[in-house]
């Protein structure tokens, strides 16, 4: 029965990674940049949700929307101020700028909201479910997270396939110049990608802190790196890949902790990543790139 318990917590942890990874992978697919500040956008959004529920006692649904809205605006502003001027610069320059933005957001939160962790109240209305006479207990947060993950995945797939903007995104990610020639507004499309990725970050933040209730200025950092790993694991740029990568990463993390070593679980997660990339150099679902000679 422990196995099932671990499976559930692995999948729910992985679902959070997956939603964060979606933000990374969408931005990467379209802007070809690693947005290292993504984890910190999550943190800022979660603070907004926190103050919405505690200080202004707004209902959970409004708090989630507040977080998404805040993240969306933040994402678009960051894109406009810090990344857009660097369009055409080397990817490394953009990477370093993203790191600068990450520093900025963390230190801003530290000054604005202090270093003391806040206990994030769970915004999940359901109670836990007890199965097999109490041997398997699934928390409401875990159920919500998994459901949210599936919902986001389906919604995003439809959006990318059917919606005009979604199609534009695919076009820009395939070939930015060609898309521009076809009359697609590349800047607008990239900004919208940031908006959607960041809105997902808002959801991810609320779910993350509902499940693991500590909120501090560094809350987003490690989940950010893990999700980035998940995105690469699944094949960066691929939406189903981010999903698969996230969930697998969560499961590997929990299972290696349970059955191999709690001390070395992070090392094992990264070791699995390395092995996977050696077998499939562009991740699980990544497109094979054949260089034109």
């Amino acid at each position: 029965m422990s196995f099932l318990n671990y499976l559930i917590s692995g999948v729910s942890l992985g679902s959070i990674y997956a939603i964060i990874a979606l933000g990374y992978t969408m931005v990467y697919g379209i802007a070809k940049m690693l947005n290292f500040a993504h984890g910190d956008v999550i943190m800022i959004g979660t603070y907004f949700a926190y103050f919405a529920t505690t200080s202004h006692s707004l209902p959970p649904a409004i708090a989630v929307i507040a977080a998404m809205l805040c993240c969306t605006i933040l994402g678009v502003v960051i894109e406009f101020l810090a990344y857009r001027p660097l369009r055409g610069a080397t990817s490394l320059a953009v990477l370093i700028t993203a790191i600068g933005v990450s520093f900025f957001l963390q230190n801003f939160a530290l000054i604005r909201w202090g270093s003391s962790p806040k206990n994030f109240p769970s915004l999940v209305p359901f109670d836990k479910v007890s199965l097999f006479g109490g041997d398997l207990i699934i928390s409401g947060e875990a159920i919500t997270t998994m459901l949210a993950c599936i919902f986001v995945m389906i919604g995003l797939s439809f959006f990318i396939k059917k919606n005009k903007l979604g199609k534009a995104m695919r076009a820009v990610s395939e070939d930015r110049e060609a898309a521009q020639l076809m009359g697609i507004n590349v800047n607008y499309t990239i900004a919208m990608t940031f908006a959607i990725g960041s809105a997902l970050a808002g959801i991810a933040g609320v779910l993350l802190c509902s499940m693991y209730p500590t909120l501090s200025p560094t809350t987003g950092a490690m989940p950010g790196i893990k999700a980035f790993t998940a995105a690469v694991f699944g094949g960066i740029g691929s939406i189903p890949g981010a999903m698969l990568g996230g969930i697998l990463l969560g499961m590997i993390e929990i299972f290696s902790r349970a059955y191999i070593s709690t001390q070395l679980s992070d090392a094992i997660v990264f070791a699995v990543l390395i092995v996977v990339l050696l077998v499939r150099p562009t991740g699980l679902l990544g497109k094979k790139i054949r260089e034109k000679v």
Partner: protein
Amino acid sequence: MNRGAVNSFVNYGLVLAFYLIVQILRANGDLSRAFQAQLVPICVYIIMAISLNLVVGISGELSLGHAAFMSVGAFTGVVVSTMLVDSVASTPLRLAISILVGGIAAGIAGIFIGIPVLRLHGDYLAIVTLAFGEIIKNILNTVYVGLDSTGLHYGMTSINELGMDSAGKTIINGPMGAMGIDKASTFTAAIIMVLITLFAIQNMIRSRSGRAIMAIRDNRIAAEASGLNVMKYKMMAFVTAAAFAGMAGVLYALNYSTVVPKKFDFNTSILVLVFVVLGGLGNLRGSMIATAVLIILPEMLREYQLYRMLIYSIILIVVMLITNNERAHAIKDRLVAIVEDYFKKILAPIFRRKGGAK
């Protein structure tokens, strides 16, 4: 002498000038202790930046785990140095041996990590270097090393289980890292190491190997079609950089009485990467100057207390935007042109006179 050679000698000159200025100021008692405390770290990070530039700038592979090699060197160096405390009386000699062994250990780690890593490309390569960095940090958190009369003991659980005799000395204590290190690093030693690093890497770049490494960066397929063993040269750059990072690690560890595995995490790797990118890819002098400035800057901002890291991050973003944005480039070029014109006007008569004399 060609331009490359001139460039190299300017770099040596710059380092020596820095050394001399510091020594003169120090002799006059004009240097604050805070600045003196940063001298060795500055040199250490310069070595880190130069060696990372070999990977990122010269070889063109993004590495996010350079600090891992620093940590391998650092902890190896600490163990070696502790073992030699009694047998090698001369501190500089002990330091030199430790640096050498630490560099070799990091180089070996570089070989083991390079073999899988360098088969990948681009961002996938970057994430795997990050992964290796995290793995090494994670493992170092579980390493326990002690020294007693019977020799070296090591284990992965706790210091108590090493079975040392009562006089045993703990060298590495898991997450607590190495404590009670006999400090051996000095500014002079650090400057010598910077010069050695510059010497090795600059000469390497301007040799057959360096040419091959840059050719592979510029166009891998053409390099292969010209008969270059791509893996060999990528490895050469990666392992050389790892070895020098290891030496920097030894220098760093032996400059403090304690060093913890956590120090060499992702953030330190990123810090060094920032130096490299800001200094200019492939530009070793840029790396050196950017490192020195960015190490001193946060210390200068100390009076702003909490706001200093915020200011630091804003400066970082602004500098990146200015140096990489096309419009900013244009504005700057125009400003430079105006200043140049102005000086030309002022200096024109002088030059004319010179010409006339001829």
